[in-house]
């Protein structure tokens, strides 16, 4: 038995910290917990970030009998997850100050457990581990969505997400069962070895089902049904969290499963990813056009973005890993910033969620309005913001593999999506509203500011992200060889 526990330090720390938080929650009286818990969670996350950074080896290493494998790709992705957690905490503090819940403690440590699930998912090297950690993440998120007092929307969203999420999980399990049935193992390397000589219909079926499970998780059409309702209904910080974390975790897990293990079938599932990606890109963009609710709009936009990332999977494996990671990086910060600013503007009565609430935002808060320009233009992929580079890398990857028409479709989708990304800006700048100054909560404002600055600065100097993507690609490939 080869545990290699030291490699597992960050996860272990996070799990222990989460459990410790449960205990603290039991001790501390229920009043005025928000600040304290936010602070503690913030601290925990910061430590976890440091630990993750430390325990992300460049040459891939395995732990727990090969049940997890850490490399740079997983390390960076985990960092993304933890950064999201960090900023979510900032946004949540502000949100919880305004929308009371009885379950402040539960809220924060469920966040931690969700992140833990995501982290495990990212580094999983075995099907059962992947399945179970995915469920940790999902169930935590169901709970988070339903946690708020008298918040009917959140619960409805949680129910829908729960039902469909379970279908997705079952599909995934079924697919895993088939893979296991073909190969006799659940460990990635063994599965890979057995599969390489077995191009049977059953293998295709298994891959199809696993792929469907992932397509569901990332919200690709037609598995997307849950996404708009869930993002829309969930409390905004939760939308933020799941918008970023679920996508990162699902896509990285997808990469780690599909590229090394299912590579012999690349041509087939690549094609599927391309087709569903392009359809999703167009569908999301189109459906978002008519939205009045910004969260719902962002939900559709996330479908569209997921579609773009999916289409990148169909390129050469190296290009795919590279551009997918880049896109995920950009997408994470864009999502944080976008949902963050909505959360910031959301005061009692769901103000700030609807387009009409953005009327005259510039006169109410110039800085927020200007930040919103950065955010939405980054989402739309207008240079020189980070969002542009993400799209650009996908484009290059597609064209390099001779897929010019798909590249064009991706761009058309981004053209259509411009139609709605511009809307909040129109409302913020070009329409007049009642003059009342908005005083944004400090912590949430900081989160939005940080992520917007990331969008700007890394947009100006994309080489940083590019190098990170390259390194993670190199490390990833090293593990495959």
């Amino acid at each position, binding site marked *: 038995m080869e545990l290699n526990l030291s490699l597992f330090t960050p996860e272990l720390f996070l799990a222990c910290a989460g459990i410790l938080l449960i205990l603290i929650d039991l001790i501390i009286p229920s009043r005025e917990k928000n600040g304290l818990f936010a602070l503690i969670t913030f601290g925990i996350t910061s430590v976890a970030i440091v630990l993750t950074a430390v325990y992300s080896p460049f040459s891939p290493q395995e732990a727990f009998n090969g049940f997890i494998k850490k490399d740079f790709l997983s390390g960076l992705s985990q960092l993304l997850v933890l950064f999201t957690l960090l900023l979510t905490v900032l946004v949540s503090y502000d949100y919880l100050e305004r929308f009371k819940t009885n379950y402040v403690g539960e809220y924060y440590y469920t966040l931690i457990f969700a992140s833990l699930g995501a982290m495990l998912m990212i580094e999983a090297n075995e099907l059962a581990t992947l399945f179970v950690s995915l469920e940790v993440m999902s169930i935590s998120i169901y709970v988070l969505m339903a946690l708020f007092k008298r918040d009917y929307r959140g619960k409805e969203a949680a129910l829908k997400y729960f039902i469909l999420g379970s279908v997705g999980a079952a599909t995934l399990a079924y697919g895993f069962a088939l893979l296991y049935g073909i190969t006799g193992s659940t460990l990635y390397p063994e599965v890979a070895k057995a599969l390489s000589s077995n191009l049977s219909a059953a293998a295709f079926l298994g891959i199809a089902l696993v792929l469907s499970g992932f397509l569901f998780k990332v919200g690709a059409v037609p598995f997307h049904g849950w996404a708009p309702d869930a993002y829309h209904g969930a409390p905004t910080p939760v939308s933020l969290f799941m918008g970023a974390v679920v996508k990162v975790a699902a896509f990285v897990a997808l990469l780690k499963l599909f590229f090394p293990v299912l590579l012999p079938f690349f041509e087939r599932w690549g094609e599927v990813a391309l087709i569903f990606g392009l359809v999703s890109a167009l569908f999301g963009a189109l459906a978002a056009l008519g939205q009045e609710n910004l969260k719902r709009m962002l939900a559709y936009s996330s479908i569209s973005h997921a579609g773009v990332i999916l289409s990148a999977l169909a390129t050469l494996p190296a290009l795919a890993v590279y551009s997918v990671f880049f896109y995920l990086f950009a997408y994470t910060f864009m999502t944080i910033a976008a949902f963050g600013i909505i959360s910031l503007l959301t005061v009692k009565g769901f103000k700030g969620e609807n387009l009409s609430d953005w009327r005259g935002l*510039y006169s109410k808060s*110039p800085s927020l309005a200007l930040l919103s*320009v950065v955010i939405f*233009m980054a989402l739309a992929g*207008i*240079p*020189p913001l980070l969002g*542009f580079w993400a799209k*650009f*890398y996908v*484009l*290059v990857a597609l*064209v*390099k593999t001779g897929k*010019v028409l798909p*590249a*064009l479709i991706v*761009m*058309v989708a*981004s*053209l259509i999506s*411009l*139609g709605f990304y*511009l809307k909040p*800006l*129109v409302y913020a*700048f*070009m*329409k007049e509203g009642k003059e009342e100054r908005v005083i944004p909560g400090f912590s949430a404002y900081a989160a939005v500011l940080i992520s917007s600055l990331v969008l700007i600065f890394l947009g100006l*100097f*994309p*080489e940083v992200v*590019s*190098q990170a993507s*390259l390194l993670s690609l190199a490390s990833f490939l090293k593990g495959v060889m």
Partner: protein
Amino acid sequence: MVSLMLVIPLIGALFIALCRSEERAKWIALFTTGLVLVLSVLLLFQFDVSKSSSFQFIDYGHWLPSLSIKYKVGVDGLSLIMVLMTALLTFIAVPSAWNYIDRRKRLFYALLLLLETAMLGVFVSLDLLLFYIFWEAMLIPMSLIIGIWGGERRIYSALKFFIYTFAGSIFLLVGMVVLVVFYTSLTGNFTFDLQQLLNLKLPLELQKWLFWAFFIAFAVKVPLFPFHTWLPDAHVEAPTPGSVILAGVLLKMGIYGFLRFSLPLFPDAYKLYAPVIFALGVIAIVYTALIALVQEDVKKIVAYSSVSHMGFVMIGLFSLTVQGIEGAIFQMLSHGLVSGALFFVVGIIYERLHTREVGKMGGLASLAPKLATLGMLFTMANVGLPGTSSFIGEFLTILGGYKASHLVGVLMALGVIFGAAYMLYMYRNVFFLEPKVLSFKDLDRRELLSLGLLALLVIWWGFNPEFIMKFIHGYTHRLLGGV
């Protein structure tokens, strides 16, 4: 030095963001744009004309090495004059906004400065992707300027402008990437460097596709019939400084794109499709001139006249004669001055009368002789009277068009008649006849100075076009040598 010009407006914008006073913003803007203008003039004098076909003042840095995208800027003769014009018109735009922009001044001037950086960037980029970035980055400030300070239908116009242009540029981006990937497949060298890409001889089949991809992006910006409908909307709704910049600089970005990319990169496709462009150009000239004849809105007339003039430019470009191309370049330069000035004039009138309807004006010549005089000058320049800079361009493009096809020449020249017709009717309705208003303040010193500057340039370059032309002979020579 070129990089300095790109950075200065950004610093200016930063200062505006930091300063708390709404009033001080415009002084900062004036100073910044002035500084850029001075720099551009300095650049003009330091430029080595004998080597005008090669790029000078190159600033070079690795920006995105993993995709070998470089920060590479520099100017050749063509870029140089575009830079000069951009600097000039932005400088002019500040005084034109002086009274017109009466709210959110800080935002306005900051956006204007950002816009300046983006526009300058477009003209000096020597890396395809850098070009594209500036090309797109320009959209945000411009749309905001139209959308915030524009007229009734400003939001529609701003969105239309943004989305229309973006629609064009998606093809541009894909085309660029295809081009670069193809280059890589030949040479194994992945680069967006324009100078390296120019060495490439593309197969005709690929040229055809890429030509159209680039064409759409540039044609929308030019704008060439039938992609022009965003322009009247944008022009009419934009505030005066917006119109000045829009007409003066933004429209030129499309032409510049043709000159810098389409022509040198796809010469064979260029030759192949010239007849199509001729047809579109001729339609643009005659058809939009006809439309301009019946417009009631002064700004619309000038806007449609821009489309019409761009038809000349396009035909000149595609005539593949020295005269046609040089004429086209000169024409766009001159059109920048003239239409910028005309929009300024219209803006002054609107500021005082709060109407742009032709029917509600009249007789301003007796109330505001200075405005009328300068207005006459710019009207005549727009008509293409010899002695003004427009004539040079118009004449040379007609020369080019005539060479390409007699019919094209004839139809182009027909535009000369229509141009005279709508401009003179407009002038008559605005300035002649009995006054319909009681009082009208003539130009103040600030307006006089900025319009006077433009007027002097229009006449100076009308008599001494060589001052500008000497910078583009080299470019044209190299270009046609390659074709």
